[in-house]
């Protein structure tokens, strides 16, 4: 065991670390984090519009008239529905800033490029079909490529330099002029070529060939198990697993929750929307109290453990644990690199992924239709992500109980060892 762990620590963890600090992946992750407030507001707007309580619906209609839902719909149009545009700007900004070139210029050029590539409707409108999650892959790739081009160009000699004494704002805008021109011409050419040659758009091509196949793969149980496993393996070695896999999670799973949500907004029941596995699926049903469902571990400690150290860690960790923040348990207990805790810490999330998947796929519990902050406390989160269903809370309680039962024997064993060592010292 210790030999395996040593090999992992020496060979696998540095790779994970490199992924976690890779410039483009970090820019993607931070870009998604930047737009999260808008996404969550858009999501809550839909949730309120479709809140499954007749009394509430009647109350709102009585108060504001039949049109009350248009406010939420408008918010959705300005947030979730333009997800691709938003994230192209934020990723571009973050990537450019990491190179210490002008982030805002890069972001503006990225948005412009993305719009060039986005199909136009018959009455000369930007097609909402592609500005949202369906165009997410193109948005992310576009932001990276355009920003790289921008960086190379702006650091080259192909810029217009102003004489001294010209205000900085003017200098900046002129400096970005030639790079912007070159990039937009290239993107415009690409779009023209696609139209002439195939009467298609980059969006169409990327969606059909990459995004769609990946989406159905993402929604499968094996993929969900692999994600849960990888996340917890990383955490076991003390690395921020959720953080490291975040760029992949968001790119793969945001389109799924968007689809669920837009159908839910259009009146489909949360049971009948298509996707089972989403980010809220993991956040609410698997990571109860943080990675490893450690809120259950805390309960298990209060039930059976005598050691003062474990009990004090459990006490210290409970308040933050209610908001799914669990570093104190992970590092303080510790779970990190603790051979006794390895099995339950990996096993619990996998089991919870399986129970949640089947509870939803067999139609006992509605699918997830809302994106809420990952720090939303358990039991409230289950109610919200399921579109306001108590069944979501029931699933969380069942999962919480299962996790506690799995942790009990292991923490008892760890406690036994701890007490024995103490007695020896004593």
């Amino acid at each position: 065991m210790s030999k395996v762990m040593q090999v992992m620590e020496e060979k696998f963890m540095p790779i994970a670390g490199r992924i976690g600090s890779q410039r483009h992946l970090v820019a993607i992750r931070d870009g998604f984090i930047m737009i999260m407030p808008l996404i969550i507001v858009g999501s809550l707007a839909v949730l309120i519009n479709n809140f499954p309580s007749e009394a509430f619906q009647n109350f709102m209609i009585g108060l504001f008239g039949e049109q009350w839902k248009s406010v939420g719909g408008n918010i959705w149009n300005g947030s979730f529905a333009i997800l691709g545009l938003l994230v192209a700007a934020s990723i571009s900004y973050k990537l450019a800033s990491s190179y210490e070139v002008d982030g805002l210029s890069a972001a503006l050029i990225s948005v412009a490029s993305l719009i060039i590539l986005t199909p136009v409707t018959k009455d000369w409108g930007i097609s909402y079909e592609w500005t949202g999650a369906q165009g997410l892959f193109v948005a992310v790739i576009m932001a990276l490529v355009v920003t790289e081009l921008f960086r190379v160009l702006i650091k080259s000699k192909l810029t217009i330099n102003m004489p001294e004494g010209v205000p900085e704002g003017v200098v900046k805008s002129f400096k970005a002029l030639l790079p912007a021109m070159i990039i937009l011409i290239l993107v415009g050419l690409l779009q023209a070529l696609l139209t002439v040659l195939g009467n298609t758009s980059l969006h169409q091509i990327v969606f059909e060939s990459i995004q769609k196949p990946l989406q159905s793969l993402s929604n499968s149980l094996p993929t969900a198990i692999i994600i849960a496993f990888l996340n917890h393996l990383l955490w076991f070695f003390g690395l921020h697993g959720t953080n490291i896999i975040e760029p992949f999670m968001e790119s793969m799973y945001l389109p799924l929750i968007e689809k669920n949500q837009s159908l839910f907004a259009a009146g489909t029941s949360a049971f009948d929307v298509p996707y089972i596995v989403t980010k809220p699926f993991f956040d609410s049903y698997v990571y109860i109290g943080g990675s490893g469902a450690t809120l259950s571990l805390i309960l298990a400690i209060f039930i059976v453990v005598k050691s003062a150290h474990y009990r004090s860690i459990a006490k210290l960790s409970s308040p933050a644990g209610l908001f799914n923040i669990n570093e104190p348990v992970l590092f303080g207990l510790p779970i990190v690199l603790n051979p006794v805790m390895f099995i339950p810490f990996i096993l619990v999330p996998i089991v919870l992924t399986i129970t949640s998947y089947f509870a939803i796929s067999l139609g006992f519990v509605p699918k997830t239709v809302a994106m809420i902050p990952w720090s939303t406390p358990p039991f409230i989160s289950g109610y919200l992500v399921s579109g306001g269903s108590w069944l979501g809370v029931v699933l969380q309680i069942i999962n919480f109980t299962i996790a506690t039962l799995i942790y009990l024997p292991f923490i008892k064993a760890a406690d036994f060892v701890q007490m024995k060592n103490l007695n020896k010292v004593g």
Partner: protein
Amino acid sequence: MKIILVCSAGMSTSMLVQKMRKAAESKGVAATIDATSEADLGNHLDSTNVILIGPQVRYLASKIKTKAEPHGIQVDIINPMYYGTMNGEKVLEQAQGLLEG
């Protein structure tokens, strides 16, 4: 002395910050202590003396060091056990040690 703690979202380190502030107060150490996310670190480089990194994002250490060391900022990874037990006093000592050493 200005100390900045960094983790992925700045959430778990903000718990430790409170403990460190208390420790600093009871010891009579004049220190400004804050937590931030890695993404926002760039806005905090001015006038900071020490950056302490949460062990779960220790893979960022070399990147943060190259950014911070030109500013004369000391960078270190928080001892995992002190971090887990939220031992504000020990982590404050770690920061002080960096400045003296």
